[in-house]
């Protein structure tokens, strides 16, 4: 077994385990912390794929911002739903069944594709090439300048909308 395989398997197991903890734990604060671990595992998988930019952005955006926001939200709304109450609805057995059926369908479908077991070699791009390509793709008019601008407008709209919705509009 090569180093990449060992690293991949350990991070994959870590990620899957923490993802399961996220959806099954009663204590939401702990669930949020496991989510941080799952996101960290996914970031290291990105690094393993040679997408170091996305690994860093993943940690920066998801752990530095979204997970912190989640933890704040959990703390703000905590004493409403105590940890003793069951956190899942009645349909969990059905959901497990459904999810496993979908899993086998997906795997069955894509495993017949020819590129399925294509080994991924290590990247030769370790310098700035990938980031430069991404940056040029984002700003060149023949590339993805329009989606990029749209995304920035989306972020602005989300920011304003979030502030407006969460604003305390006086006491009714």
């Amino acid at each position: 077994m090569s180093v990449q395989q060992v690293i991949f398997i350990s991070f994959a197991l870590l990620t899957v385990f923490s993802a399961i903890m996220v959806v099954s734990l009663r204590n939401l604060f702990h669930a949020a912390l496991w989510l941080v671990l799952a996101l960290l595992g996914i970031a290291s998988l990105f690094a393993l794929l040679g997408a170091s930019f996305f690994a860093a952005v993943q940690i920066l955006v998801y752990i530095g911002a979204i997970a912190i926001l989640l933890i704040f939200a959990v703390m703000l709304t905590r004493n409403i739903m105590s940890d003793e109450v069951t956190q899942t609805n009645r349909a969990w057995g059905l959901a497990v069944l459904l999810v496993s059926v979908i899993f086998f369908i997906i795997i069955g479908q894509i495993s017949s594709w020819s590129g399925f077991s294509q080994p991924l070699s290590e990247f030769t791009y370790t310098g700035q090439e990938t980031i430069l390509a991404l940056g040029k793709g984002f700003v060149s008019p023949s590339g993805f300048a329009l989606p990029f601008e749209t995304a920035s407008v989306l972020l602005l709209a989300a920011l304003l909308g979030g502030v407006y919705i969460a604003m305390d509009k006086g006491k009714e």
Partner: protein
Amino acid sequence: MVSLSWYLILAAVIFLIGVYGVIVRKNSIAILMSVELMLNAVNINILAFWHYNTQLNGVIDVSGMVFAAIVIIAAAAEAAVGFALIISVFRRKNSVVAAEMNILKG
């Protein structure tokens, strides 16, 4: 060597764990966490295929990276608006249980 299938299977597993969480969880914050898991699974898939395409063609594939970046942007926007909604509902109904958010019901 790690092959493409490993990433695809892992992404499917994480995505479906997220789906399970969305179906089963009562608390809306927990539902948002599961949605984050699903978005991340999608990103694993996109970046795995980006690697595959780059390796196949020998040129850096830009569109894969742009897609992944836009998924992250969408996730950030979704988290911001989602939490604002949860806080707003929490103020009105004093509850974060998704099943009790029925103000629009006649």
